[in-house]
Every structure is written in structure tokens, then in C-alpha cells.
């Protein structure tokens, strides 16, 4: 399945793009996706970030549904 990923802040700098589509396996978890991203962008693994699945913060066990919008969120700095 296709996973649509949005990158923000320093993570967009590492991936050198604001968004991209990757192919992933069905029922993959956030942990699986992180592993896939670490292989593609080793520098990303060294960064702290949260993963939003359809605009909800997920944890490592969150299953990524079909056509989900994934966002990689570096530490928040609002205020």
C-alpha cells in the first residue's frame, strides 16, 4: 500500500522534501515505518520526533490504516 508522509521542521530538511509517498506492507505499525525511514534517512533516527496518523499522535504499536496521512513531527516550539 502507499503511505503518504508529511515532514515538518528539521525532518523536512533531512528528507529534503515536505512530503513523499512510500510503499509499505498492509497492517504495518508506526514502528515498522520508523525502521523503514531509518534505513532511508539514517540521520532521522538520531532525532526525536512524534508520528501523527491521520492527525492523531500514535505510538510504536499504532497500525497504519489504508491511505492514512502520516506526519513526522519534530519537538513542538509553539508559544
Amino acid at each position, binding site marked *: 500500500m502507499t503511505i503518504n508522509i508529511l515532514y515538518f521542521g528539521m525532518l523536512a530538511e533531512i528528507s529534503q522534501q515536505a512530503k513523499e509517498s512510500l510503499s509499505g506492507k498492509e497492517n504495518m505499525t508506526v514502528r515498522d515505518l520508523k525502521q523503514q525511514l531509518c534505513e532511508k534517512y539514517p540521520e532521522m533516527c538520531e532525532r526525536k520526533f512524534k508520528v501523527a496518523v491521520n492527525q492523531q499522535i500514535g505510538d510504536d504499536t499504532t497500525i497504519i490504516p489504508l491511505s492514512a496521512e502520516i506526519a513526522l513531527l519534530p*519537538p*513542538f516550539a509553539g508559544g
Partner: protein
Amino acid sequence: MDKLHKPRKVFVSGAISPQFVADSIAKHQSKVDIGAHAIFLGQIRADEKTEGFVTGIEYSAYEEMAEQTFHEIREDAFSKFDLICMHIYHSIGVVPTGEISLFVFVSSAHRRTAFEASEYIVEQIKTKVPIFGKELIGPAGEYIWKENK
């Protein structure tokens, strides 16, 4: 009416002007059940880094999620505190040092509710809303990604 709690636009391009804050206060003069306003203003500090002084912050956000999160924070605060009015504005884009990037404005019948709600809302914004900031340093375009403590 504020009690319908409609989602509101929070993001403002660039700094929030003192005039905007003043106008917001003035708009509440007709609401005579209000006895207390609490206002929190976040201002950009000229922190000193090893590369030099911070000259401003460039904010970006996952805007759709951020607007939704602001809405949830508003709903949550209305349910926790006996508020008459609540307004939240946050900058997007560049805000120079000394200028305002966050404006939280709550109104209630009595002071304690307003004090407590404003603190609660600001803390929620700091930890839950996906807003990112580049601290801009010096004239050469250097920057550091900011992280809320």
C-alpha cells in the same frame, strides 16, 4: 456567540500587534457579565547562542492538525473552567524579537477562573500543538530549531 464554540482561525501571519490586542479588549466592553480578563502574551526573546543573538523566530506548523488541536484545547478549557469568552491567536511565519507571537485571552465572572484557565491553556498549547520554530540568528541566515522545555 462564543458559547457555540465554533472552530476559529488561530494563526496570524507574522507578529500579533499591540493594536490587535487592544481592539480585542475593546470588543468585550459590551459583555457586562464579565468581571475578569486574563491575557497571556508570548514575546520573542533575544536569547544568546554560541552563534550570536536570536533576532526572531520563524514559525511553521502542521496547520490542519494544529487548528484541530487548538479547537480541542478550547473545548477542554470551556468544560474545565467557567469561562465566558476565550480567544487564542498564534503567529505563523517570522516574528522578530520583542514582538508578540502568542495571545491567549480568557474572560470570566471572577479573577481566579481567568488566572487558572489562562495558565492551563498556555501549557496545553506548548505541549500539544504541532508548531515548529526556527530561532534566527545573525544576519547570515543561521538558525537553530527551537524546542519547548
